[in-house]
């Protein structure tokens, strides 16, 4: 990447102590995102995508034990977010300001007691301007830009007055109205139909072009990822198992999980009515994870005695392309050293 990274995640581990063992929600995740860049984060349900995002905002569950580094590089210097007090003033300035998040579940980010306008204006007043009238007009403008009908009226509605799709758009407006440097979008368009989705995605790109915003885009919709991401990281069972630029990932995926994922999606134009190639089996629960490849129990290419006794590291297997799989000599070599 030509640009210096805005955010660098290094060896992030989030351990959740539960009654029946320690659940490794995120297990040694590393990535970086440059200004103006979009990193797509994909992977099976429960693989730790939301936990990774929550760690950047420092809103992971209280009982979670987080280690590693999350470095935020700004003109004024570098901050390690992991080292901040999760309730202190430093993280509160970052949260909703420098870094904003669009949540998977829209209800969780609005309070039912205040109008959506009040809540969006609060965010703007905290991070962008002191002027109430200006904050209100920014909010109305944003609501209009995410396609909310009659923004000047809708702004005074309470969250429960809005349909699911409208609430999701109001939340997107709130996240974008503070002009964040990093936008974390966690399944932001799942409740929206495709025409509204197109409108919202275009808005994110416009703001990215205007302000050089970096985006961490989490989704299981590979169509959206292909459209939005510059680079993609694929997660499985708490770890990134493949990462490269979006074209390489779709044209030549290296990890057997990514390959299986690509075969499992229905595509327009593919002979329809044909059976989809489902991935057999289920994801294990990451409690007391064995030292093995997380995909070993479902992998069509599994090598007994290799994949189930050691954990493959994420290594360079082709130019600009990393994968964590023992099918690649680079990974075997790294494990033997």
């Amino acid at each position, binding site marked *: 990447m030509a640009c210096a990274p805005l955010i660098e995640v290094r060896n992030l581990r989030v351990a959740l102590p539960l009654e029946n063992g320690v659940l490794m929600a995120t297990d040694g995740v590393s990535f970086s995102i440059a200004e103006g860049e979009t990193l797509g984060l994909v992977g099976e349900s429960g693989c730790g995508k939301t936990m990774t995002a929550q760690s950047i905002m420092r809103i992971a569950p209280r009982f979670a034990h987080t280690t590693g580094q999350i470095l935020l590089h700004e003109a004024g210097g570098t901050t390690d977010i992991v080292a901040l007090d999760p309730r202190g003033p430093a993280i509160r300035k970052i949260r909703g300001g420098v870094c904003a998040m669009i949540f998977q579940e829209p209800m969780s980010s609005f309070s039912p007691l205040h109008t959506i306008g009040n809540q969006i204006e609060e965010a703007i007043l905290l991070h962008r301007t002191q002027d109430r009238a200006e904050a209100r007009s920014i909010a109305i403008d944003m609501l209009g830009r995410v396609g909310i*009908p009659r923004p000047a009226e809708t702004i005074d509605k309470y969250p429960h007055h809005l349909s699911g799709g409208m609430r999701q758009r109001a939340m997107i407006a709130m996240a974008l109205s503070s002009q964040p440097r990093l936008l974390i979008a966690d399944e932001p368009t799942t409740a929206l*139909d495709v025409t509204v989705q*197109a409108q919202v995605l275009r808005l994110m790109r416009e703001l990215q072009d205007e302000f050089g915003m970096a985006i961490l885009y989490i989704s299981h919709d590979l*169509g959206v990822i*292909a459209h939005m*991401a510059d680079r993609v990281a694929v997660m499985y069972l708490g770890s990134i198992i493949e990462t490269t630029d979006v074209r390489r990932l779709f044209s030549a995926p290296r990890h057997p999980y990514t390959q299986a*994922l690509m075969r*499992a999606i229905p595509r327009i134009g593919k002979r*329809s009515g044909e059976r989809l190639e*489902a991935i057999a089996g289920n994801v294990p629960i990451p409690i007391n994870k064995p030292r093995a490849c997380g995909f070993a129990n479902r992998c069509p290419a599994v090598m007994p005695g290799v994949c189930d006794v050691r954990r493959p590291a994420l290594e360079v297997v082709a130019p600009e392309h990393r994968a964590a799989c023992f099918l690649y000599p680079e990974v075997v070599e790294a494990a033997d050293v």
Partner: protein
Amino acid sequence: MSETELPVLSVRALQKHFPVERGIIRRTVGAVKAVDDVSFDIAPGEILALVGESGSGKTTLGRCIVRAIDPTGGEATLTRRDGTSVDLVRTPQRGLRSIRSDMNMIFQDPFSSLSPRMPVIDIIGEPLRAQGIARREIHARVREMAALVGLNLDYLTRYPNAFSGGQRQRICIARALITNPRFIVADEPVSALDVSIQAQILNLLQDMRERLNLSYLFITHDLSVVEHMADRVAVMYIGRIVELAPKSRLYATPRHPYTEALLSAVLRPDPEARDQPILLTGESASPAAPPQGCHFHPRCRYAQDICRTVAPQLTEVAPGHASACHLSKELALRGVGTA
């Protein structure tokens, strides 16, 4: 195959209007025409997909047909396995119990639609218990159905929270199929699931169609899934069907501008694709106050004077292909490639 060519389901002029109430005394001041004059047929073994804007009335239509809610008007005639016909709209709630064995609904959310306090074997068997079938026979049928949908028979005495999302959706499907129905409304059956499990469930639904000659009304906003599953597609916009056609015709040669916009907004899983979505400007209208004339005219890039005043009727534009647009004979609309 059944000996008759009658449709399994024949819906005519179906309506569901929700009252809009204001003030302390809840005066009715208007109506949300969530479903407004909808008609279609579904043949035995056919999958009819229902797509459309969020809030256009898809779920409401499905719930009216299975009588989870009562329609305001119209007819929905179900041909039962024994060859007799019933109008679902006019059947009183008490009479519905026996009809439920011929039709069922799979709800969108596999998490909230399962009772957490019942073991899975009882959840799946519930529709049979409602019919007063003996416990021993119910258990045998549950095991048979569980095997058919690929659930592990050793786990049937567990509670739903011990199952993953995909397994729970299988439980819902087993419950919907256990009475050997002819017709199923499937409301977004895979949208809560991730891609690899989604593929398992779609394959399962197709297997069931082949084995049991089932028909589906398949509601979804994922047009790639529609293309994979459906025989015909109905497109809804504010309470009405605006286009209805065999799947490959609809994708290749749409005849309604809203369908064109929908298809253009599908993002293909291909970073090289330079998709050019048609952006719909203007507000999406509310079914409480739909615009005059064609409901779509404020957002339609082809709209003319007639569109602003006269409501277009759903009319046949080619064999089996109907569209509700004044200009559908003239316009050359863009579809998406089907191989």
